[in-house]
């Protein structure tokens, strides 16, 4: 019996090690290729992994005069920080109202939002672009425009947060109201401190979303490379015809983008797990 157990454990370890290699392999290659020397080996696709000469050429390029990488990076950071803060506030407000208050049309509102959620997001792209253009928020004004779009529709993503609020006993609210606290004070002084995990989850998810958005970001910032975010810029590097020259630069940029986001995610992983698990069970 012990022998059988030991063997099955060894098999499990082998599977886990193979899985780990598969999962880490692309990241490993990405990092290694970002160190290829641009001078001697150019920046294109080559048929070997390890550079013949290791150097920081690609990283140096990103911070050089000729590259707008720092600008793109700052753009993305600005969008991510501001929209994460505002989206979190919006989600908390909507969740509290829907979880705690009973008002006429509450069910109707939730049903309408559920139906709206089934329309694909890109359907309205042209119309949104036009609305933003009327406000002067495209092209060079794309950064505030993107923030506006992200925040304006964030109220519909209340499910996970409301689910969490629902688990906080209502008797707490009632006790506070008997003591004369207003609804606003209850939200601010009681519900928010009690919901730290879900607030961190909401902020984390909305912080990470802008790093991946290249569809809408490229549409809104069309033609103005100053307003690109990193996703739009990197995707252009990889897909333009001269990506042969930019491939290692894309790798280097990818590493620089992935490191802070990954560290942040790993630090807050606990809250993320709590959020997705809670969301999955309640549907």
């Amino acid at each position, binding site marked *: 019996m012990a022998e059988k157990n030991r063997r099955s454990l060894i098999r499990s370890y082998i599977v886990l090690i193979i899985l780990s290699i598969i999962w880490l392999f692309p990241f490993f290659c990405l990092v290694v290729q970002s160190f290829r020397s641009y001078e001697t080996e150019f920046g294109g696709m080559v048929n070997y992994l390890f550079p013949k000469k290791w150097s920081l050429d690609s990283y140096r390029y990103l911070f050089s005069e000729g590259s707008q990488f720092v600008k793109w990076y700052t753009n993305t950071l600005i969008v991510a920080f501001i929209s994460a803060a505002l989206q979190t506030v919006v989600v908390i407000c909507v969740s509290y109202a829907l979880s705690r208050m009973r008002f006429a049309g509450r069910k109707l509102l939730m049903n309408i939002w559920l139906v709206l959620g089934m329309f694909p997001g890109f359907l309205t792209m042209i119309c949104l672009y036009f609305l933003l253009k009327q406000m002067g928020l495209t092209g060079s004004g794309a950064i505030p425009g993107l923030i506006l779009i992200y925040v304006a529709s964030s109220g519909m993503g209340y499910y996970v947060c409301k689910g969490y609020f629902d688990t906080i006993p209502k008797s707490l609210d009632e006790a506070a109201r008997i003591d004369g606290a207003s609804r606003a004070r209850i939200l601010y002084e009681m519900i928010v401190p009690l919901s730290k995990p879900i607030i961190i989850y909401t902020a984390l998810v909305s912080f990470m979303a802008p*790093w991946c958005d290249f569809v809408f970001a490229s549409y809104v910032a069309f033609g103005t490379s100053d307003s690109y975010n990193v996703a739009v810029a990197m995707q252009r590097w990889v897909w333009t015809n001269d990506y042969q020259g930019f491939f290692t630069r894309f790798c280097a940029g990818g590493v620089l983008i992935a490191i802070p986001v990954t560290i942040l995610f790993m630090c807050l992983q606990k809250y993320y797990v709590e959020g997705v698990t809670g969301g999955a069970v*309640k549907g």
Partner: protein
Amino acid sequence: MNQKKSIIKSIGSFFAWIGKDLKEIGVTFAKGSWQTRLSFLLIGFGQLVRKQFARGLAVLAAAVGLLYYIFGFGMSYLVDLPTLGTKGRGFNPDGTVSYGDNSFLILLFSLVTIVAILAFVFIWRVNVRQNYQADNLLREGKKLPTNRQDLYSLLDENFDKTLLALPVLGIFVFTVLPIIFMICVAFTNYDFNHQPPAKLFTWVGSENFAQLVSMDTAGLGSTFFSVLGWTLIWAFFATFLNYFLGMGVAMLINKKGIKFKKLWRTILVLTIAVPQFVSLLYIGKMFASDGLINSWLMNAGIIDRAIPFWTNKNYARVLIILINLWVGIPYMMLIATGLLMNIPADLYESAKIDGATNMQMFRRITLPYMLHVTGPFLLTQFIGNINNFNVIFLLSQGGPTSVNLEGGAGYTDLLITWLYKMTVTNTNYRMAAVIGIMVFIVSAVISLCVYNILPSVKDEEGFQ
């Protein structure tokens, strides 16, 4: 059968509600004081005379603003709604450009005007209701709420209005209005040849829908059904393969005796942490004809010519599903890990004593529990995969394209990526709108059908 009844019932209750509302308006007028009656015409009058300035000014300002928009601006567009403009861009006799009508603006601002009119009716109704309440209070000899109380109530019993005002407005302007607009566009001929401001577009009825499903040469039927078929196949595999394999990995790591559980999980979770466009763009290039995988295989002498991962229809489809496992397994693993720990351990103990094998325990205990708890989650995952733009677009951009497919579609295009191409590459907005509506219909039908057969909906108490 049941649904039919409930629809009839809800229509019935809607009319009952309208009747009740009209009756209340009548009663308000018949029994109301002179201030109230005058308020039917002069919005906010009653409130202001009774010194309820907060209410009075709020409804007055809203009403004036809406009327100003409707008559100062919106009406001139609304009258053109039936034709969407008749005067194209041309030249005046003196040679200057005459701009003519802009169909896009006419459609958009007409919709806004219609909404403004509805909003005005609503404000008027609120105004009447406020006077009605004031009348009732005075008749009972009670005091009217002061302005202070009115404003304070926005932080207390009416806090929901404060909280929801901005989010609802935002969703309305940037989600509802654009969706209604695009639904309208599906019934017009707005495309590359009819682009405002230079050209006009106009209503064409359901022609676009007919074109999407028609099988003759001008129709997109064969392409549409091919893309729809692949969308469903993709969503099926992407959902269920990830689900079962993710659960398998979670059970593997949860197994008694496995050390460094946290390390294994962290390695997998890295995929979620790294922004998808970095990892997926890189992986896409790894499998390119001049990418690492092909180079290694050729260097090792296993193949002579590069494997056409992205240019062969079947290779591309299988590869995308496989790479999606790399994306999706960690996510499912995280969710399953927490849920598996919730299964009472004594269930397994007693099963073991009864001599159950691991496989039997999985099929009789683990799987039913997981399916029960995650039923709605599976549904949302399925819908999410129908709309899974990033994975497809970053890896293959929908390719390989083919002469057999119209509208720029490729063999790995989902409806959603096709919609994107229609908008951005082909500027064929009318078909983009039609495809968007199709995506909605597919999602809605699947949700409705599945939701009604989900065990956790039928039997809420099941595993509690």
